[in-house]
């Protein structure tokens, strides 16, 4: 039985380079950076003092009834803005015959930022009551009742973006949130597609939202030595595939797409932006702290996605081009990821690998963690639609272990019909999507 075809009819994002598909895309093609000093909290003495923050963003502009969402934490605020953009672009907001029971949501959204101050105050009160031995529970609960705000706590649950989006759009179908670290929103789009293919929904809102730009988030990644700590200009810190790369730069935001069956899109006369044709998911099953050195897990995800899409990675198209015309890399800018991802791409595409342009927009907007995959999938769709490949910025010193075409430092015109997007999570969960120019029914 052939699979139901799934097409993309809406896109939205909220990123450190702004929000709105065209405005952000223009800045990506120009190679602009969203990285700067951290303003969200005083990070002056942290090992890392810079990040790509979302700025000048008011989520209420997107909402019918902002009051309903007044307790939304930042991750949910980003999710709402991106989802409403995508929903409007798809035209479903104006489609009178929509069966809301057949519209689901699959997000890879991160938890809400913790209420740091109230937790510091409560914990230290409990600590001091015991004379600095441990946190005394009676003193803690007394302080917690004074400092901890109910909605700030419950809104941290990772299924809250799901709840807010379902209420804003009025949709009632299958609803999932997954949180496979940096792979989450790629996985969400993929599993969302599978729900449609199975026939359990006609339309899915899919994507992710996340911010770890808070004191404990930066602390956690600093302790892992995963973040860049360079002291020169923040805009040049994120250096995927460069020999001098020293870690990733934190970003935040959201990317959302609307996917639906081809029949549903055609029947309502929707504008089809691209077709989603392949999804692969795997686990390294190697180590919590390290990526499998041969990139076997990454290869398995790419191969599964290509197989799902019916693409042989070694076979040229009739016009001589490789079967994939652009890869949006996971490309974090850590020593480990970028060399292993390169090895995995070569392992999958063999002799054709050097002919496939690969770039990482994390060089410009940092790493959006759980939201990265969906934003990077939108990048692939935009490459198909506009014929521009966004660059990998800050790639000045080639690394012999990274020897593919990374579209270094300058965007480029290219005919992209099929693109692939990779996301790999801490702990070894890997996901890949393949997206194609819509060539008609």
């Amino acid at each position, binding site marked *: *039985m052939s699979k139901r075809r799934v097409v993309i009819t809406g896109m939205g994002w909220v990123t450190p380079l702004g929000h709105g598909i065209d405005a952000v895309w223009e800045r990506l093609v120009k190679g602009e950076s969203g990285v700067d000093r951290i303003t969200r909290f*005083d990070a*002056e*003495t*942290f090992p890392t003092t810079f990040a790509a923050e979302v700025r000048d963003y008011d989520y209420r502009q997107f909402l019918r009834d902002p009051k*309903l*969402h007044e307790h939304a934490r930042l991750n949910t605020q980003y999710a709402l803005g991106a989802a409403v953009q995508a929903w409007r672009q798809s035209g479903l907001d104006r489609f009178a015959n929509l069966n809301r029971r057949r519209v*689901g949501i699959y997000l890879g959204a991160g*938890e809400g930022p913790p209420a740091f101050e109230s937790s*510091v105050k409560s*914990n*230290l009160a409990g*600590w001091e009551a015991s004379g600095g031995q*441990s*946190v005394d*529970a*009676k003193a*803690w*609960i*007394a302080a*917690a009742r004074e400092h*901890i705000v*109910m909605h700030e*706590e*419950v809104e941290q*649950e*990772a*299924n809250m973006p*799901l*709840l807010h989006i*379902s*209420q804003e759009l009025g949709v*009632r*179908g*299958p*609803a*999932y*949130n*997954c*949180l*496979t670290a940096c792979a989450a929103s790629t996985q969400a789009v993929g*599993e969302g597609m*599978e729900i449609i*293919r199975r026939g359990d929904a006609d339309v899915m809102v899919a994507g992710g939202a996340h911010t770890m730009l808070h*004191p404990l988030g930066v*602390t956690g990644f600093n*302790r892992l030595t995963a973040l860049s700590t360079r002291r020169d200009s923040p805009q040049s810190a994120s250096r995927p595939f460069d020999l001098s790369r020293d870690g990733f730069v934190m970003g935040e935001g959201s990317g959302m797409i609307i996917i639906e069956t081809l029949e549903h899109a055609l029947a309502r006369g929707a504008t089809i932006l691209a077709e989603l044709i392949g999804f692969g*998911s*795997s*686990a390294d*099953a190697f*180590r*919590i702290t390290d990526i499998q050195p041969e990139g*076997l897990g990454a290869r*398995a995800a790419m191969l*599964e996605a290509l197989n799902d899409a019916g693409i042989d990675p070694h076979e040229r198209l009739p016009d001589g081009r490789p079967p994939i015309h652009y890869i949006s890399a996971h490309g974090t800018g850590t020593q480990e990821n970028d060399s292993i991802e390169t090895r995995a791409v070569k392992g999958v595409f063999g002799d054709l690998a050097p002919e496939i342009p690969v770039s990482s927009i994390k060089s410009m907007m940092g790493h959006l963690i759980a939201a990265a995959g969906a934003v990077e999938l939108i990048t692939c769709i935009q490459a198909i639609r506009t014929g521009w490949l966004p660059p990998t910025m800050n790639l000045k010193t080639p690394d012999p272990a990274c020897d593919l075409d990374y579209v270094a430092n300058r965007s480029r015109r290219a005919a992209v019909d099929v693109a692939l997007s990779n996301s790999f*999570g*801490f*702990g*070894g969960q890997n996901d890949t999507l393949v997206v194609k120019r819509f060539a008609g029914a």
Partner: protein
Amino acid sequence: MSREVAITGLGVVTGLGIGGEALWEGLLAGRSAIGPVRQFDASAFPFNFASEVDPAVSVRDYVPKTYRKAVKVMCRDVELAVIGAARAVEDARMVTKGLGDGAAPTFAPNRVGCQIGAGLIVAEINELTTAFAKARDESSAFSMKRWGGEGMNELTPLWLLKYLPNMLACHVTIIHDCQGPSNTITCGEASGALSIGESRRVIERGDADVCFSGGAESKINMLGLLRQFHTGMIAATSPDMDPQRVVAPFGAEASGSLPGEGAAILMIESLDTATKRGARVYATIAGFGATQSADLSVCPPRPDSGGEGLADAIRQALGDASIDAEAIDAIVPLGCGAPEYDAAEAAALRRVFGARLARIPLVTTKPNIGLCAAAASAIDVAVGALCVLNQSLPARLGAAECLDGLDAAPTGQRDARLEHVLVCGSGFGGQNTAIILKRHRRSA
């Protein structure tokens, strides 16, 4: 034609013990594991009781020797998942890299998936506060500058990795060498059931033959319990109350649920491979449905009082199983004992089953093991599977007087003819699930 999917192993960890047998024996005997919180002094908290896993249980006994070092980066949620996964493998009579002393694994690693639901994990409070304390300035106030300079260095370098929700699945994939699709679903109490629904899809579409599936979580820590209280699902109590009489699902005077900790990792397997290897089949998963509904106009958000969302999920599952509502012989509901949740669930069941509802036995578990967060709905699927396999309904605790004459009042264990059992999962945030388990008869 998609592949049929079965449950072939149960790895359940609850206050009633380790393993499906311990849970089943406890339920048959009508035991409750709910008592005063032991992991810290909760006497000044707005509620004081929980169902806790025996503190003598050590995760070290459930990991291969080569993996013992990694135990130090496991938070309690991960420990529960790892214990549950080991028990599930054993129960399914499988061999994996981690269990089987080097024998060849039953399945090739790339045919094994892993979908384990998780919650919002709270960092261990003393570890974090030791670091906060180092960041106090001369006036004893917390200083962000000192935190960045010195305080944070008190945290072990791998601190963040202990608390990422995907670490439950990641440790399990490493121990048992599962290289197939792997996911971490975080949807409150519905997480476990949604994970089981996803494992079924993964196997149906041919991307794996078997999946570790379910959920695990412990909210039995100060901030975790306070957060759960704030969801509006938990009963206010005082230490002088009888902890085993608080949770009364669908009770006319129910006051709320009580928290539990636990895990349910199920082996979800293609019926083909299960049949080929002669595995015991608890039940097949004949139907699945999922929807979203909740009311955000109040704080905290609460379930939709009309129960339409859950009713839709049940109808989806019935359609998926190609059966009528008439075919359902018993129901394992959320039945958490929180009045708003019970009322919404009862309304949903009434929409689907009408007047017959009063004659369908409900299997309630929360008075025995508490509301086990991300594990809750997976534990309930395990209970449903045990009912189907044993053709038996466990004893029931709770309220003598139930809403609308629902069959949920205290009773002893009963034998029953169970062809189809419905398991409902809902929770905080409004995700609803329905799973239909079907009795499996070996073909002659």
